[in-house]
């Protein structure tokens, strides 16, 4: 893979910091770090379909919830390790994604149709989950506490941190890999102009489905993590509208279509959310209101997100440096 010298140095530094830092933090701050990585991870999964391929989904909770329920039910009802459950959930989500993708992309339905179809899907699953006794209905699924790697349960927060860190690094590598292969180029082409892409030999349906598959699969894995970390899931925590919004907000704000955008977005928004919720507990809905405002502000003032701004600034700096080169008069 292609890593410029400078970004390689930064990445290694970042890796070291992220491995060492939790050792110095107490449980509360560790929890915040975990939520940053967790939502950053989910945002990155969304980013593959939304930021890269340009298909914005407003209902990614559908995949998240499928992952959460699949592994939890397999664990609680059949004693199957959540690690295997994670895989099972991911495969299930993949099938679901391909099905929805087929319905939507077949006639070239995109944009609002797709966004809403995903939302409808998530809501449908929520209704089914509430009303279906076999999945415990509105009561939800309670994961038994424990301290076993095989059961993906830990007393301490630290193992969870390293697991989500590994997942985050994994999705970053996947995203970077996609960006540098034909897959990523084709995703961008589809995002920018489908007709032009077609005329250049790109099979739109095929690549959209691939983006969908990757995104669904990885998002579902995040659902399993959630279930094992919080020890409890229910229909609204798994499929609810606020979950879908939380998932897409970080990449949009941080920079859709960039590798680090979702993580950057999460670095900003997750602590904000935690602080708002704990400081202003009496005003329920405040943190959502703030999120809504940030979304609006981002779309109007920073449409390419924070990373987009960073890239622009970087470009300006490089241009100025080129103009006032070492051999030219200032």
């Amino acid at each position: 893979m292609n890593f410029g010298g400078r970004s390689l140095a930064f990445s290694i530094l970042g890796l070291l910091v992220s491995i060492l830092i939790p050792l110095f933090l107490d449980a509360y701050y560790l929890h915040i770090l975990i939520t940053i990585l967790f939502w950053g991870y989910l945002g990155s999964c969304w980013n593959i379909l939304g930021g890269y391929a340009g298909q914005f989904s407003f209902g990614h909770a559908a995949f998240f919830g499928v992952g959460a329920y699949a592994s939890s039910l397999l664990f609680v009802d059949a004693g199957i390790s959540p690690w295997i459950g994670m895989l099972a959930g991911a495969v299930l989500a993949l099938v679901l994604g391909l099905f929805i993708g087929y319905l939507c992309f077949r006639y070239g339905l995109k944009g609002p149709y797709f966004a809403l179809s995903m939302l409808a899907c998530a809501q449908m699953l929520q209704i089914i989950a509430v009303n279906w006794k076999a999945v415990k209905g509105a009561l939800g699924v309670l994961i038994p506490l424990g301290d076993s790697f095989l059961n993906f349960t830990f007393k301490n927060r630290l193992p969870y941190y390293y697991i989500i860190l590994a997942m985050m690094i994994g999705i970053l590598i996947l995203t970077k890999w996609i960006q540098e292969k034909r897959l990523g180029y084709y995703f961008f082409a589809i995002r920018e102009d489908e007709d032009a892409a077609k005329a250049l030999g790109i099979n739109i349906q095929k690549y959209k489905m691939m983006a969908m598959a990757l995104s669904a699969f990885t998002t579902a894995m995040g659902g399993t993590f959630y279930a094992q970390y919080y020890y409890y899931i229910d229909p609204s925590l798994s499929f609810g509208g606020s979950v879908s919004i939380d998932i897409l907000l970080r990449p949009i704000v941080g920079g859709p279509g960039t590798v680090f955008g979702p993580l950057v977005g999460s670095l900003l928004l997750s602590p904000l959310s935690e602080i708002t919720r704990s400081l202003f507990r009496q005003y329920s809905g405040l943190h959502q209101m703030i999120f809504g405002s940030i979304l609006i502000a981002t779309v109007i003032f920073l449409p390419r997100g924070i990373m987009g701004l960073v890239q622009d600034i970087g470009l300006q700096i490089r241009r100025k440096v080129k103009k006032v080169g070492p051999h030219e008069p200032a």
Partner: protein
Amino acid sequence: MSLLEVKGLTKRFGGVTAVHRVELSIERGEILGMIGPNGAGKTTLFHLITGFHSGDEGHILFKGEEISSLRPDQICKKGITRTFQIVKPFSHLTVLQNVTIGALNRIPEVSFAKQVALETLRFTGLDKKKDQMGIHLTTPERKRLELARALATSPELLLLDEVMAGLRPKEIEEMIRLIQGIRGKGITVLVIEHIMKVIMSLSDRIVVLNYGEKIATGTPAEISKDQKVIKAYLGKEYVFAER
């Protein structure tokens, strides 16, 4: 065997017949110009050949193979690439990325595709702009990008839809040389243009459409004397005027 053969191609949109029983053939290595007043069906024909529309009647054969029911991306893979009248650059990607996407048509490996893209940029004179974003390009640069991107797909037949529109005389001359250079590489070209001088000097043969029908075909010299063509463009009064 002709490279491309269009037989009896008809396309209707509701009550309007945009293309009516058009027959034409393109020979390997030639530059075929297509002219006709606005609304004559030229761009519709492009859409039909490249799979963006499906014809109601008729056949399109490429190297003897029927392609009329193929998708646009499949047709590109077969060897026909087109540009768009209103250019469609990938605005938030760099020039190099744009053309690389074209090159990826035949070359699955990105680093090799980039090489081909760079060569294509040099050939089309855009290499100095390779790191510029699509939205920051001027109109003539965009037209050139559209052409470069299409060229990078390594087509056997290139369909150019009014690549000269909006260009200044010097830019037009450069573009003419570019297209001749493309033919020099062995690529067959079908060009739609409005600017008479360009078509006359560039084309080996010309086909003339009017109201969706082919009204004439021949060398530039023959076409300029053809009564039907003169009538279509200038009206009946000029039919008997001397050139």
